[in-house]
């Protein structure tokens, strides 16, 4: 019996509104089409109407999950135009924030993924661990989600108490190593739902141009942190994680190992945190005329910002390209021939972020 099943735009499996039109025969998926644009807020347009200080707050709200990355990339683009050198301490703090954000984003993903396969206990366990990351973020920045840490030329806040952060990160690392990884790789019901499910072959990954953990789970060793190092990654020595089984399990493993790498980076950065100023003394900097492109590895993949300035206090053009933009269409390649019941976890394995995609 052929079905046409819409998942979304408002559906419990989806964190955010987007629509999957599933064409299925019985419980086997034949084809999927994806519809996005439900959260289009015209952020690029608004950014061109507001000044640089306001824009930093605005682009932070492109996405609530990877908010810090957006301000970081925007600041990097502006710094490039104005040729500002970011102080060393600020570069380290930026790295720490970016990696903490990756930790919380990947944990969030793991929680949502467990919920999508109906594993409530793991969801609870992961979210309990994630609260520790959120606590650290709140201690550092004063807010749990939108940290407003970056400013053009540096960071707004200092990490005043590195020891607390260090202790918390070690606790998180122990939680990931001792609970999450063993259960995800050993529990039979989880394996039944993830192994061999939602395969995206290396060729398809190249054809769809996927980025981030999905590309790395399909055997492509691409990562901005390695290829075009920024912030303090070069000093800290970043190691890339790849897998080549290309299924949902591979994406789980890539993200799990990436979390461990993040913990290592944060610990190293905290121990080697250099002294010095956090930002240039002038709060509102003037950006001269010019244009720049900045790229950063967000939790979901590469974020690209293009910024053009005419020397006034508002940018002429802000173009944002987010990783989910490239990753979401690949659901199509993953879904064909899969069971209908697996669609929730397949779409979740991409970690689609619609507020990023739609902007």
């Amino acid at each position, binding site marked *: 019996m052929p079905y046409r099943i819409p998942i979304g735009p*408002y559906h419990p499996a989806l964190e955010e509104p987007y629509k999957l039109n599933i064409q299925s025969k019985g419980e086997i998926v034949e084809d999927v089409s994806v519809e996005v644009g*439900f*959260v289009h807020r015209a952020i690029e*347009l608004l950014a061109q109407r507001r000044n640089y200080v306001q824009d930093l707050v605005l682009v932070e*709200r492109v996405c609530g*999950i990877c908010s810090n990355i957006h301000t970081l990339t925007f600041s990097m683009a502006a710094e490039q135009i104005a040729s500002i050198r970011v102080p060393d301490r600020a570069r380290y703090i930026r790295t720490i924030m970016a990696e903490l954000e990756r930790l919380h984003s990947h944990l969030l993903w793991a929680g949502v993924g467990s919920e999508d396969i109906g594993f409530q206990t793991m969801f*609870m366990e992961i*979210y309990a661990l994630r*609260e520790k990351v959120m606590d650290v973020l709140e201690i550092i920045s004063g807010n749990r989600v939108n940290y407003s840490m970056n400013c053009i030329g540096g960071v707004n806040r200092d990490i005043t108490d590195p020891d607390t952060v260090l202790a918390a990160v070690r606790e998180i690392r122990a939680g990931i190593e001792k609970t999450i990884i063993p259960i995800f790789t050993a529990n039979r019901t989880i394996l039944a739902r993830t192994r061999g499910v939602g395969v995206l072959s290396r060729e398809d990954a190249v054809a769809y141009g996927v980025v981030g953990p999905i590309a790395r789970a399909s055997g492509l060793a691409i990562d901005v942190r390695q290829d075009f190092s920024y912030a303090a990654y070069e000093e800290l020595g970043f190691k890339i994680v790849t897998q080549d089984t290309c299924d949902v399990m591979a994406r789980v493993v890539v993200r799990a190992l990436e979390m461990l790498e993040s913990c290592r980076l944060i610990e190293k950065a905290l121990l080697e945190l250099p002294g010095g100023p956090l930002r240039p003394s002038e709060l509102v900097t003037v950006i001269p005329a010019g244009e720049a492109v900045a790229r950063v590895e967000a939790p979901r993949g590469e974020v690209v910002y293009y910024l053009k300035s005419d020397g006034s206090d508002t940018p002429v053009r802000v173009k944002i390209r987010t990783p989910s933009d490239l990753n979401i269409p690949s659901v199509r390649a993953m879904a064909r021939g899969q069971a209908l019941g697996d669609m929730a976890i397949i779409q979740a394995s991409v970690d689609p972020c619609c*507020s990023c995609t739609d902007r």
Partner: protein
Amino acid sequence: MGIFSSILKRSRRRSPWVYVLNAGSCNGCDIEIGAVLSPRYDLEQIGALRQGSPKHADILLITGPLTLRSAEAVRSIYAQIPEPKAVVAVGSCPATGNVFAGSPTVEGGVLNAVPVDVFVPGCPPRPQAILAGVQEAARLLAEGKTGRKQEAPHD
């Protein structure tokens, strides 16, 4: 007041089932609603459950500034919730549009689509504030004081 209605009042207060609707939010509030489900805040301790269908819900949690494409969905989902129902606006966006106010694709707040009973301020609010918002909405439900039409803020 009859015995059934007094029990009914209590049960409305103790059993608020919520439906979460993203009307164009940046995710910030949604992940905090996710955190409310976590063991630390445990939505179930106040008797609330997150429902997948608006028809099973009592309280509509709205996040986001109401984008043009979500406006129709918000109205229709609100209509699908059987009476009595309450609406909680989570965060600054559904109240005023927040940073997105003035965008051509955003209506700027959900007030011109549905009546809101409780606003939870914050960008995003802390999970416990959301929990308090659900409790407050449940209290309003029990007292039958929901659905008042409010004036949209003027710019």
